[in-house]
């Protein structure tokens, strides 16, 4: 194995890792606040990709306008999802809200299959993103190159919002103790909506970058990434935003390294994510950067 090939695979790993990281942030934030695994997050990612396809190909909008529209639409979808599927069940047993999340995810997938048919659609070719550059023997498209940087910048933005703004403080309070925060007069609905807004916009950006790299858009494209990104969030410490990004990178690298060094086991690539999950849950359930939570009796 030459150094060149190794560097190329490293680049592959970082690139896919940062895409996972973007989605993982959404999962970890929602879980931190609502203690809910938002199964439908991967499907919002998928819908965002479709919105992009329609904005550029069907409505012929220029790409910078399309990006804004896509982010707005995804945010709207995310908030709608929260209001219809999660809010009514806030006081219900945990299992019900989980089933609702599963149901919502299933509904979005079937809706996409029905409306857009199962035939994959081509993601629009945004020239500045798909141009290929060569850095010392390693070839990347611009999209692949900027993804890790975009991820880190967005991480910084999210951390800024969480730590330095008033709404961020409210979010941290709610994730620490839901009931008390409510009693202290924090507007729970506003906090939850903000969480979904942030999560959905990140999913939308992730979708745009993903689509430029893997231009085949189909209704169940969000299922595997969704699951993997949740696993990444658990790996990093559920509820911890930096942890989610770290988890995403580690997961992406692990996948690519498996294929690089053990090509005969390529088929087990998806299994790596699940095996990591099991190991984490058994060894350190709070994740790499998570805090210990004591269960009060």
């Amino acid at each position, binding site marked *: 194995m030459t150094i060149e090939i190794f560097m190329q695979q490293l680049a592959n790993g970082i690139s896919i890792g940062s895409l996972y990281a973007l989605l993982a942030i959404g999962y970890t934030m929602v879980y931190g606040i609502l203690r809910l695994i938002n199964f439908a997050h991967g499907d919002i990612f998928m819908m965002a990709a479709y919105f992009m396809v329609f904005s550029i190909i069907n409505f012929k909008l220029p790409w910078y306008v399309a990006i804004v529209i896509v982010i707005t639409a995804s945010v709207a979808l995310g908030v709608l999802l929260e209001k219809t599927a999660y809010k009514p069940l806030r006081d219900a047993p945990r299992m019900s809200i989980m089933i609702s999340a599963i149901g919502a995810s299933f509904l979005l997938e079937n809706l996409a299959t029905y409306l857009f*048919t199962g035939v994959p659609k081509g993601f629009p070719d945004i020239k500045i993103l798909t141009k290929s550059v060569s850095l010392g023997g390693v070839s990347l498209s611009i999209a692949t190159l900027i993804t890790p940087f975009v991820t880190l910048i967005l991480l910084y933005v999210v951390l800024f919002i969480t730590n330095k703004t008033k709404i961020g403080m409210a979010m941290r309070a709610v994730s620490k103790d839901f009931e008390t925060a409510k009693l202290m007069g924090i507007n729970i609905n506003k906090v939850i909506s903000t969480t979904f807004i942030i999560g959905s916009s990140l999913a939308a950006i992730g979708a745009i970058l993903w689509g430029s790299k893997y231009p085949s858009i189909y209704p*169940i494209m969000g299922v595997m990434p969704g699951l993997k990104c949740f696993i990444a969030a658990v790996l990093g410490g559920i509820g911890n935003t930096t942890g989610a990004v770290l988890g995403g990178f580690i997961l992406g690298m692990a996948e690519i390294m498996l294929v*690089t060094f053990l090509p005969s086991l390529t088929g087990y690539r998806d299994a790596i994510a699940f095996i990591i999950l099991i190991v984490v849950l058994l060894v350190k359930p709070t994740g790499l950067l998570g805090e210990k939570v004591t269960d009060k009796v």
Partner: protein
Amino acid sequence: MKRVLSLLICLLMVLSLFTACAKKDEDIIKIGVFEPLTGENGGGGQQELDGIRYANKMYPEVLGKKIELVVVDNKSDKGEATTAVTRLIEKDKVVAIIGSYGSGVSIAAGDIIKNAKIPAMGASCTNPMVTEGNEFYFRACFLDPFQGRVMANYAIGQGAKTAAVIMQNGDDYSVGLGNFFIDAFRELTGDPDSIVDISEFQVNDSDFNAILTNIKAKNPDVIFAPSSATTAPLIIKQARDLQIKSLIMGGDTWENPAVIEVAGADAEGIVLSTFFDENDPATNEARVFVEGYKKEMAGKEPIIPAVAALGYDAYLLVRDAIEKAGSTDGVAIRDALNATKDFEGVTGVINFTENGDADKNIAVIKTVQDGQFVYIDTVEVK
């Protein structure tokens, strides 16, 4: 009130299953169509169905009765395929079945068709196992051993000495065709090491960078990747993004506008084999078909998909057999199909071998030039 409503709905649903209306219409002959209309192969299945529907429009009657198409979606899934075919045979009482796009689902449904003694005509399923050992399954297209050989021949003709093959784990078509190519390539070059890399991917995989990086290291002259129209553009694009310069080839599933649409400029220069070329109609019937179908599709597709042409032929073959048999009995139709001689279809003149395969010895090779599928060559193997 909730309780009453829910109980009523439940009762209704169970009852309606039993009271499934059997249309005792004596003036209709039903032909079943089972294709993937959703799922991984949904695009190809829809194109094939369009061809079949057009044929039904052009030739709507046989033996003085109207032919009705009963269409069931097999969702590109083997389990669904068996349910779909059982439904067609038992519930809709079809006299013959056309389908399916995708050898895997056709093979899965084969036993049910054989046991029910209903003849089936595949349009584009190329894996040998579809008709092997099944005297009721026929097909209008050529076989994968032939196709694999054609592609290996072409590659070597272009000067290739080494090749890498990428297949989809679990897709009978991909695995079958890939292996036939490997065997033919090794035989024709006389060098067992001429295949430098054999890789597999899983259904729904979208990241091929790791596999392709490994292949890039081995630097083959040709990459042969028989895969669905869904994954083809991803493989092509990612290969070119990695600056892989090898010739990239695929099988008949690649002749799909979706491949060019999604892969964009990277699709230039890919080579594929297919059954039909609209610019070179093989028979008179073909000429009429090309004109009429283009008008019918009115811009929906840039070129006539080969599988649509095959679907058209499949329908015509079945209809012709029913007429020649003079009855709707499954065994009689099967015998009539076996006796088909020099049938003028749009994809060529068709005779059936003992196995029920169309005795076709020609394949069309196309490439992509300026964003269009362009004809290169017709290969004939004696």
